[in-house]
């Protein structure tokens, strides 16, 4: 009916959000390169980015689909180890192949590919929970997700070639190889890009009729089947996509740290994910982003407490469930709370008028 004006409006809106993102990107890279923000702030920014991907991806399963996955850290581990081993073997002198398999400089193009491969392998590991989810729900499935987390971490603990429980390192050398070609803050750049890509992909999926099939499972799985939604297929998509993104977060994490060990991806990591999802609000993408920022900053503030933070974080989860189980944003998006934002950021017509 009103196709043409709608299109015109769309085109004038699109650049605003894109430009805001580009501006933020330029600002962060610029400030980093100019030496205005120090290494510590850089690392906090990067952890925020990684946590955004981690919590937003967990939100697909725990928020949109309404299942309770408590083993998200396991998939992060898979992505971290796969991309770390690849990156070390391909671009650096290493104990597996001696010489790097590829010219180290090629990392400059292949680094994101390595991260994505880590994500894809993690997505395959997502089958560990996706397949049981066809027959199992709720508490029973939650137990399976914990089991999956343990299986993955224990496997890595027992693979001597990647250092077992001592961990695996050498990823800093890949970054050095990239910096030798052109000196750029690669991790900041790639984390930023992967955060934007993850958010755009999740949003596009969850706004599509296809992706809403995932939410229909949350509200009534029987209805979904009866109304032609292939629920097993949707579960497969949700679990694999979710664990794939966790794998990407893991790969990025490993390269920021330059070192990984299995203990970093235990049930503790998964719990951090849960806190972020429930703090932000189930099924709220902007909630996940917001809570990832808050949570990361809070972790930094609590760092002096060391192990005691593991009293505070679970306590926070308890208080949250008691007093605000719907999280900061509940089911809503930031744009629903501040309608003005909608005009800027929401391109797709979902207005009520």
């Amino acid at each position, binding site marked *: 009916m009103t196709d043409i004006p709608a299109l015109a409006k769309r085109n004038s809106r699109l650049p605003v959000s894109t430009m805001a993102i580009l501006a933020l990107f330029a600002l962060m890279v610029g400030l980093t390169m100019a030496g205005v923000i120090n290494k510590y702030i850089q690392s906090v920014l990067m952890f925020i980015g990684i946590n955004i991907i981690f919590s937003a991806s967990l939100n697909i399963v725990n928020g949109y689909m309404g299942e309770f996955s408590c083993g998200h850290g396991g998939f992060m581990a898979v992505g971290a180890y796969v991309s770390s081993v690849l990156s070390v073997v391909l671009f650096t002198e290493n104990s597996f192949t001696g010489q790097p398999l590829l010219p180290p400089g090629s990392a400059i193009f292949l680094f994101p590919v390595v991260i994505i491969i880590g994500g894809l392998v993690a997505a395959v590991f997502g089958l560990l929970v996706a397949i049981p989810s066809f027959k199992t729900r709720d508490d029973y499935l939650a137990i399976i997700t914990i089991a999956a987390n343990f299986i993955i971490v224990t496997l890595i603990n027992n693979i001597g070639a990647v250092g077992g429980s001592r961990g695996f390192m050498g990823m800093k050398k890949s970054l050095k190889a990239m910096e030798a070609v052109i000196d750029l803050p690669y991790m900041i750049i790639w984390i930023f890009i992967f955060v934007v890509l993850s958010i755009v992909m999740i949003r*596009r999926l969850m706004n599509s009729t296809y992706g809403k099939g995932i939410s229909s499972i949350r509200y009534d799985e029987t209805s979904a089947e009866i*109304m*032609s939604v292939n629920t097993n297929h949707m579960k497969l998509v949700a679990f694999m996509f979710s664990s794939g993104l966790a794998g990407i977060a893991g790969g990025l994490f490993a390269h920021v740290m330059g070192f990984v060990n299995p203990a970093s991806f235990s049930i503790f990591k998964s719990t951090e994910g849960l806190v972020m999802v429930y703090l932000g609000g189930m099924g709220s993408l902007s909630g996940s982003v917001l809570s990832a920022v808050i949570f990361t900053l809070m972790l930094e503030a609590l760092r002096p407490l060391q192990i005691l933070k593991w009293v505070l974080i679970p306590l926070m989860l308890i208080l949250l469930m008691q007093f605000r189980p719907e999280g900061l944003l509940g089911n809503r998006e930031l744009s629903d709370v501040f309608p003005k934002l909608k005009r800027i950021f929401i391109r797709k017509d979902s207005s*009520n008028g």
Partner: protein
Amino acid sequence: MAETLLEIKDLTHRFGGLTAVSDLNFEIIKDEIVGLIGPNGAGKTTVFNLVSGFYVPSEGDILYKGERINGLKPHEIASRQIGRTFQNIRLWSDMTVLDNIKISQHYRLGYNLMDAFLQTKKYKKHEKMIEDDAHELLEEFQLSDLAHEMPKNLPYGIQRRVEIARALSLKPALLMLDEPAAGLSSSDVSELIQYIQWIKENFKLTIWMIEHQMQVIMSLCSRIKVIDFGKELVTGTAEEVRNSPEVIKAYLGDGEI
């Protein structure tokens, strides 16, 4: 020529030791409105659940347009265009009415995950088709104003209407209604009767309904099957059923007839 749409052959279903449906036979002819009645616990809903693939029958066959559909998953049966409603409304009560209608078009999505990520031409084309069809359907059902409401915030009678509209978004050839009049006031009931008649004419489909309210069954159905304890008692016209001694006996003491 009368064309058989759905054929049920020697259908039996047991829940553990309880035989909920026993050796049932039924043919539903294209373009008719048929009724399935019986006292509480007779096995009516179980028959619907068997046809929509919710349970796999212990014995017997279900043929839809000549194809055996028992053993198929519910979504596969829905995709063959069998729509149904539930005795207790089962809308996605926290998603908008519009989303309820749109999601029920999964059977003809026409694009895949990659198309959704990249928002390809194909994606946009099919999303538009789904959206347009949803609005058209809502318009026909005079629900356009409620497109962005959540069903949980709507009155019961309207929810019933939304649920029927949702079933129709499957573009069914067969529509199965499980007690559509349950919980409605008597004025709503007479409206519902006209409404079902209108749906049949307007969407040119075959309707199979379970109903306790005899007024609804008697004024709409050309044929009625009565079951009790999962077994057939009689099948016939409203008149024949009303005068059948077996039916009277089965319902004796049951105030609803």
